[in-house]
Each structure stands twice: as C-alpha cells, then as structure tokens.
C-alpha cells in the first residue's frame, strides 16, 4: 500500500466510515448538550480539534519514549493519558487567555468541558496504544499517521455536530408529539443520521 493512499484511508476511515459520534457513540454528551445552536457547535468543534491534536501528540510521545521502553504501558496508560489531557487542557486555557483574549472568548467556555470529553481520550488511546483501533488497516502508527487519524476523528466530530445543530434549529418551530419533545426527538434524528452514515460502510474495503 503506498504511503499517501494509506494516509488517505486512515483519514477517511476516521472521518466518515467510523465516525466517532454516529457510528461509535463516543462523546454523545456534547452532541445532545451543546448542539442547540450552530454557532456554539462551531466553537466546540474547533476546541476539540485543537485539544485532540495536542493530546494525541503528547500521548504518542509519552507512550513511545517513556511508557513502552520502561515496559509499564499496560498498567499505566489510563492514568498517564488522562493526566496528560487534563493538564494540557488547563495549560491551553491559561495560554489562550493570556495570548489571545478574543480566541479565549470564542473557545474558553468549552475547554474545561473537553477534559471529560470521551472523544479526546478515545482518539489518543486508539491511535497510540495498539489493540483498540477498529479500522481494517494494519496497526503500526507513526506520529504523522496518528495525527492524521486524530484530525480525521476531530473533523468527523465537528461535521456531525454542525449538521446536527442545523437540524435542531429547524426543529424548534416544528410540531413534535408531546412525549418526544427535547432529548427523545434528538435521539431519533441521531438514529436517522446514523443510518445515513452507515451507507459509508465497507467503502474502499475499510
């Protein structure tokens, strides 16, 4: 398999075929909680992309240069990854606050939420530690490949979040049966979208 094609497959697989929200159900809380307005969804998607990329880079370095050589990866990966993510988010928040107040106003409120966003830990774990990736690609991720995978996951997250928010904005004026108001109808929409995304299954043999 040539190099560029492999990158393309990893990216596409993470973005559409194994979409993190609709096919894998990771990080549903922001999907239901944040996606009521398009604007907040875009802010959230950008923050996730930013934090996820940094978290995967840091986790990859920690796994390949510290945990794996010392032979403790199997026991310590959970606490190490989650601490990396938590401190990274804290650091990013302080850094952005100091350097760019407008950016902080746009992204700031979502940053603390992202620590407990399963998507970040999931992307880091899958692209760094062997044995979790579900894509039909032989696993031996180098740093660029792990990054491509992560960016694909984050963009897939953003894409669905924004589509979802657009639909929900329209929903506010539509007649909905009383029992289905609020969260239940959101789940029905998620089911339909998920059905649409399932059409991508087996694309390019993934």
């Amino acid at each position: 398999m040539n190099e560029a094609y492999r990158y393309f497959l990893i990216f596409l697989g993470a973005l559409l075929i194994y979409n993190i929200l609709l096919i894998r159900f990771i990080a549903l809380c922001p999907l239901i909680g944040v996606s009521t307005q398009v604007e907040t969804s875009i802010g959230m998607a950008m923050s996730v992309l930013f934090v996820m990329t940094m978290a995967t880079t840091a986790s990859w370095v920690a796994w390949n240069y510290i945990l794996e050589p010392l032979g403790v990866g199997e026991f310590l990966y959970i606490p190490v990854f989650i601490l990396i993510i938590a401190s990274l988010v804290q650091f990013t928040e302080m850094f952005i606050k100091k350097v760019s107040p407008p950016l902080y106003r746009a992204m700031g409120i979502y940053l603390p939420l992202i620590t407990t966003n399963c998507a970040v830990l999931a992307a880091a774990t899958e692209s760094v530690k062997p044995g979790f990736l579900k894509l039909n690609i032989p696993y031996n991720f180098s740093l660029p490949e792990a990054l491509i995978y992560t960016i694909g996951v984050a963009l897939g997250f953003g894409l669905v979040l924004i589509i979802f928010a657009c639909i929900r904005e329209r929903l506010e004026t539509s007649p909905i049966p009383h029992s289905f108001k609020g969260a239940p109808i959101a789940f029905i929409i998620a089911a339909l979208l998920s059905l649409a995304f399932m059409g991508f299954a087996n694309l390019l043999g993934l």
Partner: protein
Amino acid sequence: MEETTFWYEFKKGFIIENPLMVLMVGLCSSLAISNRLENGIFMGISLTFVLVMSNIIIAAIRRWIPDQIRIPIFIIVIASFVTIVDLALKAYFPPVYDRLGVWIPLIVVNCIVLARAEGYAYKATVKNALADGLGMGAGYTCVLLIMGFIRELLGTGKLVLFDVTILKIAPPYNPPAIFILFPGAFLTFACLMALLNRYKARKVEQ
C-alpha cells in the same frame, strides 16, 4: 434510622436520579455496548465496581484532600480502579474484552463516576457513599440490561447468554438487523425516554 438512610441512598440512585434516564450522563457507553445482553452485564459490573470503590476511597480520604486539587486526585483514584478492571477483563474474559474494547479505558471519563465523586462522595460518609455507588451502578446496569434485552431479542430473534440460547422468537419473525446496528441504539433509547416522559406526564395529570 441508619438502615433507612442506607436504603434511601440506594433507591435514589436506582430510581429518582437514575443516571441514564433522568440525569442523562454516561450515555455514550450505554448506547454503544447495549447490542447484546451479555455486554450489558459485564459493562454494568465493571462500572459498578469502579463507582463503588472510588466512592468509598474518596469518602474515606475526603478530609485530607485539598480543595484546589481535588479533581486530579479523583481522576487518579478512578483511573487506578479502571486499570484493575481493564487488566482483570483482559486476563479472564478475552472475548468480552475484545468486544468492549476502548470502552473500558473510557470508564475514566464516564461522567457518572466523576459526577458522583465530585457531587456526592466528597461530602458523604463512607457508608452512604457505598449505598450511593451501589444504587447508581444498579440503575445504570438496569437500563443497560433493558436496552440489551430489547435490542438483542428484536435484532437477532434470540437471546444468547454465555453461549446458551435462553429465549427465541418463533421462525416467521424475520429479525430486522437495524436493532443490533448503530441506529437501533438511538431509536430504542429515544422510545424508552418518550415512554418515561409519557408516564411522568400521566402521573402529573393524576
């Protein structure tokens, strides 16, 4: 008096504040792995174990936890118990571990566990924290089992538990595979929530 409070704390998690149906936290894992009843049992036990143990430890050491760094301490405590579950499942039930996959490490960022640590165990006695953990865990497991039951029965036409078929729908029934696939999870959950809403609305009317 002691006994009634213990029972009350247990019941609260189970019914009044059911983490999935009422508080709507920790949705991701419950939707993703509820395509089989058996998965629900293992995931329920794993989460209950982590929840109970972390609740007990945090309630026991709460006097010595400095307020400013309590979240990282909670996360370390939770991460250690998740590691125990991770390694135990991997050693004794490899096929189950394969199916649950990344969801086991993701218990660390499962909102239920952190929310109970921060919102309840940090201010409660050890005994109440134990009851709370058991109740919340039971509430979570119960919803998981209901979902697993509906989805596996409708989606495959039979229930398989530890390689034994325990229930089967007669042959003319042609199982729609959508229920064990991804959209089925959203649909089942939406319908369960709508039912609950309807039940509540009825109760208010009366």
